[in-house]
């Protein structure tokens, strides 16, 4: 990182947020930072939409009978919850918000390689999102986010075409982002910033982009085939037309399994940055963490059949996929051990970003280990398509990914907005989210092993107690998320102004003002340090800027 301690400013107090005003300056921006903010607002809207559906689902499941909504409505609720959360929140989240904002800054670049394509990716996302909203408003789709055939291609009477089109279009946003990041990382690193001096956040996004580019086209084609079969009765998946319904599952999961790694790998990147800063130490085993991201990207493409152990695959096919699934667990374990080792002999402080990381470590470990239950063939037969699976993926997606996203938002919020949020409120939110989350989803492991199937509108009454516990937890979880939204918005208007480096972190993004100027750097920096060069500097470091006693911007 460059040797300057004083952040560079545009003398007029201008930054990327205030250098131009008006809707056009935002909707036609090519500034990666503004595009990140556009994404931030959009994915938050979809998170609220998906969250609302989740609330209704949990409300219905408080009683064993299907008495809140009709069966068809319930089926639409869980379908739309999945589609909104997976395609329109989780997959874009960290890459589109934090990746877009930070990658050029971390690389010492003025923007991404293709700024206009970056804007295009947001418009493609919005188009897909609008199609999804239209499909909801017109009556919704009830196939499950997994669109299994022949139900989706022949039998469903809901807005399958619209919903599939929404996901289809949205996939291109993902591909464009992936292409942009790969080229940016290869071509736009500042002088001296060699591959092994890169922040692990960058490695994580590189691996993610590989998956986005290679995997997304497959789901696009698959959804297109479903749309074609629905429109023209071609006979790809419907056996009465000569098709094979299981073919759909192979095609669908070939993308959708790697998709979960698109979701979690950027989260891993955030964790590395936050652990290093809040232990004031270089990440233990840097190259192992970097390569494990690539290993996950590659191995992640080889395990899709673990969603199909009882789908009609041969026993031998099942064995191959089970074995490979156990293998892909190992690189994730390596990361957890390396992050833990980073804490050893560190200097640890527990501000909100670090608290979210600790929460992540706990919840992701449980989520990842329960994945092994599902990888175990003999056991998966029993728990497949039960609430055990639902609990597993919410532990990794919400307990893992969303915690990591929130950690990143809290860490870089001062950089992105120039404001500090209330640390006390943030600590309260971490607590509510962690407790609420566990009460929501841990009982679901028990329910799943008992035999409660997924996507059930009504269930045997002896399972009501566990369902009530889960719903109670969901309300606390919802409260935690709402609190976060509120204090972030509050901070925009009333939060104390942040300095260039409130957490005294290493990284090129912390050498510029908060918020940065439109072109990031007045001069491209020259990098002479390793990544996370905490404890390497001889110069006196400025006192850490905490939320308790803030300084004005230099």
């Amino acid at each position: 990182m460059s040797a300057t301690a004083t952040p560079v400013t545009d003398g007029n107090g201008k930054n990327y947020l205030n250098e131009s005003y008006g809707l056009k300056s935002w909707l036609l921006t090519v500034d990666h930072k503004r595009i990140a903010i556009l994404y931030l607002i959009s994915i938050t809207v979809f998170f609220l939409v998906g969250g609302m559906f989740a609330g209704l689902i949990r409300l219905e499941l408080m009683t064993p009978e299907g008495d809140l909504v009709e069966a068809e409505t319930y089926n639409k609720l869980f379908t739309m919850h999945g589609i909104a959360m997976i395609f329109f929140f989780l997959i874009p989240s960290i890459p589109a918000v934090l990746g877009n904002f930070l990658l050029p800054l971390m690389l010492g670049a003025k923007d991404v390689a293709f700024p206009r394509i970056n804007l295009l990716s947001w418009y493609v996302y919005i188009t897909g999102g609008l199609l999804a909203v239209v499909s909801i408003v017109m009556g919704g789709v009830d196939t499950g986010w997994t669109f299994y055939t022949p139900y989706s291609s022949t039998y469903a009477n809901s807005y399958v075409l619209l919903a599939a089109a929404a996901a289809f279009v949205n996939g291109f946003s993902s591909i464009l982002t992936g292409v942009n990041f790969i080229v940016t990382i290869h071509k736009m690193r500042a002088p001296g910033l060699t591959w092994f001096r890169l922040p692990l956040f960058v490695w994580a996004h590189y691996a993610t982009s590989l998956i986005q580019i290679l995997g997304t086209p497959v789901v696009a084609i698959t959804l297109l085939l479903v749309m074609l079969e629905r429109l023209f009765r071609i006979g790809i998946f419907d056996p009465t037309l000569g098709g094979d319904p299981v073919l759909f599952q192979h095609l669908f999961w070939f993308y959708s399994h790697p998709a979960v790694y698109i979701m979690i790998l950027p989260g891993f990147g955030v964790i590395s940055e936050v652990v290093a800063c809040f232990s004031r130490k270089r990440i233990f085993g840097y190259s192992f963490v970097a390569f494990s991201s690539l290993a996950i990207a590659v191995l992640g493409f080889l395990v899709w059949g673990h969603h199909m152990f009882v789908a009609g695959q041969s026993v031998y096919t099942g064995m191959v996929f089970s074995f490979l699934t156990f293998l892909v667990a190992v690189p994730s374990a390596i990361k957890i051990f390396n992050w833990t080792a980073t804490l050893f002999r560190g200097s640890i402080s527990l501000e909100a970003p670090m608290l979210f990381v600790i929460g992540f470590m706990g919840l992701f470990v449980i989520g990842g280990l329960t994945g092994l239950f599902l990888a175990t063939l003999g056991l998966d037969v029993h728990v497949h398509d039960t609430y055990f699976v639902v609990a597993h993926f919410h532990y990794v997606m919400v307990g893992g990914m969303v915690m990591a996203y929130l950690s990143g938002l809290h860490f870089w919020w001062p950089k992105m907005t120039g404001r500090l949020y209330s640390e006390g409120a943030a600590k309260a939110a971490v607590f509510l989210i962690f407790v609420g989350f566990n009460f929501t989803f841990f009982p679901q492991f028990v329910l799943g092993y008992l035999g409660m199937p997924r996507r059930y509108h009504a269930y045997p009454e002896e399972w009501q107690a566990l369902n009530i516990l889960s719903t109670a937890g969901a309300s606390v979880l919802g409260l935690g998320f709402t609190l976060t939204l509120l204090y972030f918005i509050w901070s925009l208007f009333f939060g104390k102004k942040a300095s260039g480096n409130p957490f005294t972190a290493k990284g090129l993004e912390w050498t510029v003002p908060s918020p940065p100027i439109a072109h990031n750097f007045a001069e491209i920096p020259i990098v002479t340090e390793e990544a996370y060069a905490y404890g390497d500097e001889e110069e006196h470091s400025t006192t850490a800027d905490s939320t308790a006693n803030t300084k004005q911007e230099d």
Partner: protein
Amino acid sequence: MSDFPLFPEQASTVAGQVDFLYFLLVGLSLFFSLLVFSLVVFFTIRYRRRSADDRPKPIHGSIPLELAWTIIPLFMAIGVFTLGADVFFRIKRAPADPLDVYVVGKQWMWKIQHAAGKREINELHIPLGKPVRLTMTSEDVIHDFFIPAFRVKQDVIPGRYTTLWFEATKVGEFQIFCAEYCGTQHSGMVGKVVVMDPIAYHDWLTGGGGGGESLVEAGARQFQQLGCETCHKTGDTGRGPSLIEVFGKPVKLTSGEEVLVDDAYVRESILQPKAQIVAGFEPIMPIYEGQISEETILQLITYVKSLTVTEE
């Protein structure tokens, strides 16, 4: 809220083995999670920041440690994989001579046919202590036959047969669920397995009500009514091959290929007869696709199977 079960009962020969895998994984998970949690908590407290000028030494890594925590989990993973695969084989491979029952799933009910003739909807009566094999297909979308107390589950797919076997170890009633989302009444597609001791089962099976015609008899009747016997005569004197003693054996096709005459082949030969013609015969059999139900096909298959006993 009367009961508050936290664990399903074990009612099949395989349940105990599946639960063993479960508890093994629970144990391993507890071990590793407690290990990680306690280290994280311990380090966070022990190494908490004491002053703003704390400058810990950067420790870059340790190859021995990396190798250790890569190789040890790898071996544990392979171990668990092997145990899981072993139980999986047992779940998937039915023992010799099971009692055959036929299941047709449709939105949103389970139609069950016993070989001896009894038909049921959403209920499956079986004897205690005898392996039972379900041969299943769907009339519409993908369903899944799931009996939690037996720890078994199998997708039920339109256009093909899938099988599921189990041996009950307890008398009683056990829930059946559909475990693959299949539309509006997916959560209503439930039923129960009724396990009876063998004598009570025999009485139930041969008792009145629910149809007296066995599957073989029904198949024989359909064979005649649908006109099959006009071409499929004994000896190869008819326009179609004789079906005596063909089931379960390989047959040569006009393409030169050899295939096994199993459930799937017989079903395809009825629905799409031109697909795989037996060598020496013309492709003249009428197509029955869309004209007969899945149950009728199962009856016909059972009848053809029965022709291995050299009668008629």
